C-alpha cells in the first residue's frame, strides 16, 4: 500500500472503495507477517427513537447514520517505524480518532480525540428558559411546558503524548489530556412549603449549565534495570468552570423572595487545581525477594471567587475566596519473598495523610443550633498493613492465610448534626485454598472475616452545649462484622469445553449508637455465575452464561425525633425498618462461525431482569402505623447483536450488522413528579429499536 492510496482512501464512500478494490483483485495474497490496514464505510438505520439505546452513542432518533471506521497500520521494516491511524464511529456522536507514530525502541508520539456524549434519557417538558446559560428564568406560577427540551452533555477529550527512550532502560513519557464538557444536566432548587394541587411543594427545575474544562499533565521518567526499577514524575490537574454560579430569575415567592433571602445564585463547582510529585520503585534483593514502593506528595488548591449577588452577603473579614488547600502525603511499600520453593510470603504497608489546610473562617455570624458559622475542613489519615503466607501442599493445593489492618482517623467540628467517631479500625482475616496447575480443573475457595470498630462515638452536642441527637452510627463509621466467601472453579474436561463457576457471598452486621437499634443493621450480597464455552471446530464456537446477583441493605430509623434525639415511636411517628433489595437475573449467549472461506457470522444476546424492592415495616407492630412500602421497580434490558461478513475477495467485503435493543421499566422516579413551575421529565418506559447497518470494508497492506 502506498501513501497516495492512503490519502485517497481516508473518508471516502463505499462506492469509491469498490472501484479501487477492483484494481487489486488480481494481486497476490496478503503477507501475513505484515500489518493490515482497513477502512469501512456504510450506512445504518435506526427504526425508532430510543434515548436509552442512544444515551452514549447518539443514536437517539429514528433515521439514517453514517458508519465509518478506519484502521491504518504501517511498519517500515528498515527503521521499525510504526504509523497508526485509527478512527472509530467517525460518523456518529461518539466518534474517536488516533494518530500514532513510533519508532520502536526509540521514540513514540500520539494524538487522540474522543467525543463522549451523554443524552439524558429523560426529556424535559418545560417553560423554563435560558437552559445551558448562567441565568435561567423560571415561571412564577404553574406553567405547564409546551416544548420538549433534550438535556445533554458532551465531552470532547483531546489527548497527546510523547515517549522517548533516553538510553537503554531509561525512558521518559509525557501525557496531556484536555477534557472539555459542555451542556446541561438535571438540577433544581427547593424549600419547604406546599404548592398547587398536583405538585409536591416548592421545587423548581433549574438545570445546571455545564461548560467545564479539565486538564491533566503526566510527566514520567522511568528506569528499568535488572534488579531496580524506578518511575517518578509529576502529575498536575486543572479544573476550570465557565460558570461559578447559576442565577435564577423568577420563580415562586418562597424561593424568589427579593433581596438577601432569595434562593439565587446557586453555587456551581469552583475552579481548582492540583500538583503531585511521586516516585515508585521495585527492587529485587535476591531472586526470591522483591520489594515495591511508592511515595508521593500532592497539593490541591481552590481559590475561585465566591458567587456574588444581593443574596450573598459576606461576613466581615471574609475574603472573596476560600483559599482552600489540601496536602496529601503517601507512602506505600510491599514485599514478596519465597524463602522456600513452596512458601510465599507477602507484606504490604500503606500510609496516606490527607491534610486539609484550608483556613477556618467565621463565614456567618448568626449561627443556628447545629452550626457555628465556620467552614469545616476535612482531614483523613489512613494507615493500612497486610501480610499473607501461601504454602504449596500436595496434590497441587495451595493454602493461603492473611491478615489486614486498616485505621482511619478523621477530624471533625465541635458542632455536628451527624454522629462521629475520631478513629475506625478494621481487622480482616483471610484463608484460601486454591488448586492450580491442573490440566482439567482449577479452583479456589476463600473466606474473609472482617471486624471494624473504633474509638468511642463523641457525643453530638448543639451549639450552646445542649445534647443533640445520638442515634445513628454512619454506615462508614459504624461497628461492622463481615463474612465473605468466594468460590471459583474452571473445568476443562476436554479441550473443546470450558466451564467456569463463580460464587460470592457477603454478609454484614452493623451495630448502632449506644444500643439505639437504629441506622444500618444488616447487609447481604451474593453473586452466582456459570459460564460455558464450547468449540465445535476451529470455525465454530459458542458460549453461554448466567449470573444471578442480589444485594440487600436493612436499616432502621424513626420519624420526627426530637432535637435531642428522642424517637416518639407513636402510631403517627413510628420507629420503622427498611429493607432495600436489588436482585437480577442475567443471561448471555454468543456464537461465532465461519461456514466457508468467504462468510463469517456471529451474535450475542444479553438479557437482564432486575428488580428493586423497598420494604418499610414498623419496628413495633401492630400498635404503630405501618408505613407503606414503595412499589417494586422492575427493569428489563434486552440486547441482540448479530453480524455477518461476506468477503468479496481477499481485500474487500461487506458487513451486515443488526442490533435489537429493548428497555422497559416501571420506574416511578419521574412519571408522577411535577415541578411547581410546571416542568415534567418524561421518558418512554418501553423503548424498542432495531438498528441495521450495511458497510463495505477494504483492506490493504
Amino acid at each position: 500500500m502506498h501513501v497516495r492510496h492512503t490519502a485517497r482512501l481516508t473518508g471516502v464512500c463505499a462506492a469509491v472503495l469498490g472501484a479501487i478494490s477492483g484494481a487489486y483483485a488480481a494481486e497476490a495474497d496478503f503477507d501475513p507477517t505484515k500489518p493490515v490496514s482497513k477502512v469501512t464505510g456504510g450506512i445504518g438505520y435506526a427504526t425508532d427513537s430510543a434515548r436509552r439505546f442512544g444515551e452514549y452513542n447518539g443514536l437517539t432518533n429514528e433515521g439514517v447514520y453514517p458508519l465509518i471506521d478506519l484502521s491504518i497500520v504501517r511498519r517500515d521494516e528498515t527503521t521499525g517505524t510504526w504509523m497508526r491511524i485509527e478512527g472509530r464511529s467517525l460518523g456518529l456522536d461518539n466518534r474517536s480518532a488516533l494518530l500514532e507514530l513510533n519508532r520502536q525502541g526509540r521514540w513514540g508520539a500520539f494524538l487522540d480525540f474522543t467525543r463522549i456524549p451523554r443524552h439524558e434519557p429523560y426529556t424535559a417538558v418545560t417553560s423554563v428558559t435560558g437552559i445551558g446559560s448562567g441565568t435561567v428564568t423560571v415561571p412564577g406560577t404553574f406553567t405547564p411546558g409546551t416544548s420538549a427540551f433534550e438535556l445533554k452533555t458532551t465531552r470532547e477529550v483531546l489527548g497527546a503524548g510523547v515517549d522517548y527512550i533516553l538510553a537503554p532502560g531509561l525512558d521518559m513519557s509525557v501525557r496531556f489530556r484536555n477534557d472539555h464538557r459542555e451542556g446541561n444536566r438535571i438540577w433544581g432548587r427547593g424549600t419547604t412549603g406546599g404548592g398547587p394541587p398536583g405538585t409536591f411543594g416548592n421545587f423548581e427545575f433549574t438545570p445546571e449549565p455545564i461548560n467545564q474544562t479539565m486538564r491533566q499533565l503526566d510527566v514520567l521518567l522511568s528506569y528499568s534495570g535488572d534488579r531496580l526499577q524506578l518511575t517518578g514524575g509529576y502529575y498536575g490537574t486543572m479544573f476550570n468552570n465557565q460558570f461559578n454560579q447559576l442565577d435564577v430569575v423568577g420563580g415562586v415567592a418562597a424561593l424568589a423572595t427579593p433581596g438577601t433571602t432569595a434562593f439565587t445564585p446557586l453555587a456551581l463547582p469552583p475552579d481548582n487545581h492540583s500538583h503531585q510529585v511521586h516516585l515508585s520503585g521495585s527492587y529485587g534483593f535476591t531472586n526470591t525477594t522483591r520489594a515495591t514502593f511508592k511515595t508521593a506528595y500532592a497539593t490541591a488548591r481552590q481559590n475561585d471567587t465566591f458567587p456574588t449577588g444581593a443574596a450573598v452577603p459576606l461576613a466581615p473579614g471574609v475574603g472573596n475566596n476560600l483559599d482552600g488547600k489540601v496536602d496529601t502525603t503517601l507512602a506505600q511499600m510491599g514485599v514478596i519473598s519465597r524463602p522456600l520453593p513452596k512458601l510465599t510470603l507477602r507484606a504490604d504497608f500503606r500510609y496516606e495523610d490527607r491534610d486539609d489546610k484550608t483556613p477556618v473562617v467565621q463565614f456567618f455570624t448568626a449561627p443556628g443550633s447545629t452550626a457555628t458559622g465556620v467552614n469545616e475542613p476535612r482531614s483523613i489519615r489512613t494507615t493500612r498493613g497486610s501480610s499473607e503466607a501461601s504454602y504449596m501442599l500436595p496434590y497441587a493445593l495451595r493454602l493461603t492465610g492473611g491478615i489486614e489492618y486498616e485505621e482511619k482517623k478523621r477530624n471533625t467540628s465541635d458542632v455536628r448534626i451527624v454522629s462521629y467517631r475520631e478513629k475506625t479500625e478494621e481487622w480482616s482475616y483471610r484463608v484460601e485454598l486454591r488448586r492450580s496447575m491442573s490440566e482439567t480443573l482449577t479452583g479456589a475457595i476463600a473466606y474473609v472475616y472482617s471486624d471494624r470498630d473504633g474509638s468511642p462515638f463523641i457525643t453530638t452536642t448543639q451549639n450552646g452545649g445542649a445534647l443533640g441527637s445520638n442515634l445513628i452510627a454512619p454506615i462508614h463509621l459504624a461497628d461492622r462484622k463481615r463474612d465473605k466467601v468466594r468460590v471459583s472453579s474452571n473445568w476443562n474436561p476436554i479441550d473443546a469445553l470450558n466451564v467456569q463457576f463463580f460464587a460470592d457471598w457477603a454478609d454484614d452486621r452493623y451495630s448502632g449508637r449506644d444500643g439505639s437499634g437504629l441506622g444500618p443493621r444488616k447487609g447481604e450480597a451474593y453473586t452466582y455465575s456459570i459460564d460455558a464455552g464450547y468449540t465445535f471446530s476451529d470455525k465454530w464456537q459458542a458460549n453461554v452464561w448466567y449470573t444471578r446477583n442480589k444485594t440487600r441493605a436493612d436499616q432502621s430509623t424513626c420519624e420526627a425525633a426530637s432535637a435531642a434525639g428522642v424517637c416518639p415511636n407513636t402510631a403517627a411517628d413510628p420507629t420503622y425498618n427498611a429493607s432495600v433489595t436489588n436482585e437480577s437475573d442475567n443471561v448471555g449467549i454468543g456464537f461465532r462461525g465461519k461456514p466457508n472461506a468467504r462468510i463469517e457470522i456471529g451474535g450475542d444476546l444479553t438479557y437482564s431482569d432486575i428488580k428493586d424492592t423497598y420494604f418499610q415495616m414498623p419496628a413495633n407492630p401492630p400498635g404503630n402505623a405501618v408505613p407503606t412500602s414503595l412499589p417494586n421497580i422492575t427493569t428489563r434490558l434486552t440486547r441482540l447483536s448479530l453480524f455477518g461478513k461476506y468477503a468479496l475477495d481477499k481485500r474487500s467485503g461487506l458487513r451486515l450488522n443488526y442490533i435489537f435493543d429493548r428497555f422497559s421499566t416501571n420506574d416511578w422516579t419521574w412519571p408522577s413528579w411535577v415541578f411547581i413551575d410546571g416542568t415534567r421529565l418524561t421518558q418512554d418506559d418501553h423503548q424498542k429499536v432495531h438498528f441495521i447497518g450495511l458497510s463495505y470494508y477494504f483492506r490493504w497492506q
Partner: protein
Amino acid sequence: MRQSAGRRSTTAWAALAIVLLTFAVTLDALAQPAPPAKESAEQVCKACHEPYFATYAASKHGTKTDQRAPATRGGCIACHGEGSLEHAAKGGGKGTGALNLSSKTVSPQTKNDVCLACHKGGKRVHWTTGTHAARDVTCSSCHTVHTNHDPTRDKLTQSETCFKCHKEQRVQINRTYRHPIREGLVACSDCHNPHGSASPKMMVRDNVNDTCYACHMDKRGPFVRTHQPVQEDCSICHNPHGTTNPNLLKARQPFLCQQCHEPTSHRGNFATLSGTSTGANTLARGCANCHTNIHGSNNPANISNERTFRR
C-alpha cells in the same frame, strides 16, 4: 538480412559452449552438493507453527530493528526457551522441551517471568506485590501475544477480558445508570491498573477519589460547605460499575441518606410517592430536591441554609 556462414558457425560454437558449461556446472553441483544454509530458529518453528509465526512477525515482538524485541533476541526462543530446539529436534509434540505458555501445567510465575524479563518497571512496577500476581493471574490470562491487535488493549473489547473473572461487574455495566463501558468510551483500565498499584482496588491514581477526579474534578473542591463522605471516598455513596439508582448511587434517596443522618426534623421521614414539602424525599431527586449541592457548596453565606448544601 542473411547471416554469413562464418557468423553462423561462431554462433553455433558459442551456443554449444554455453550448453556444455551449464551442463558441467550442473554436474559439479550434483556431484558436490553444498551443505544447506543453517536455518534460523524462527524458520524451524515456522515450518510447523506457520500461523503463530505470522502473527508474531506482524507484531511489535517481530520488529527486527528493535534491539529489545524477541525478533533480535533469538526469535521464538526468546520467549519459548532453548528447549524449543530440543522440541524441534524430536519432531515436535507436547511436553518435548519448548515452554508452552498456554499450558496449565506451567506455573503462573514461570509464565510471568518470561514477560517480566522485558516488561518490568513503568506501569508494572507494582506487579509482583499486586493482587493479580498473588491470585495466579498470568500475563497470558489477559493478553494475546501473537497479534498486533490485543483485544485487552482495545477500549471496546477490554472489558470482556476483565469479565472472565469479574462476573458481578459484567452485569453491573449494563444497569440503567452506568459508565459508557459498553460503547468503548470508558475502559476498566481508565480507573484500575490491573498490573498493580499503590492504591486499594488497584486504582490508577493513589486512592478512589483521585481516580474519580480525573474525569469529575468538579467534585473535588474543597468547598466552603464540605460533605464529609464526599471528601473521604466517592464509593461510600456511588457504585461506579453501574446501578439502577440515578447517578450510580448505591441506594435510592432517602434510604441512602438515612444510613448516616440522624432522624431529627424531617430526616427520618418515610419514603413515599405522595409526600409534599420535606416529605418529598423519594421522587425526582429525592433529598437533593432541596439539598441540591450535595457534593459541597462554595456559597459563603447562610441566608437560605446553604450550610446544608441548598444553594
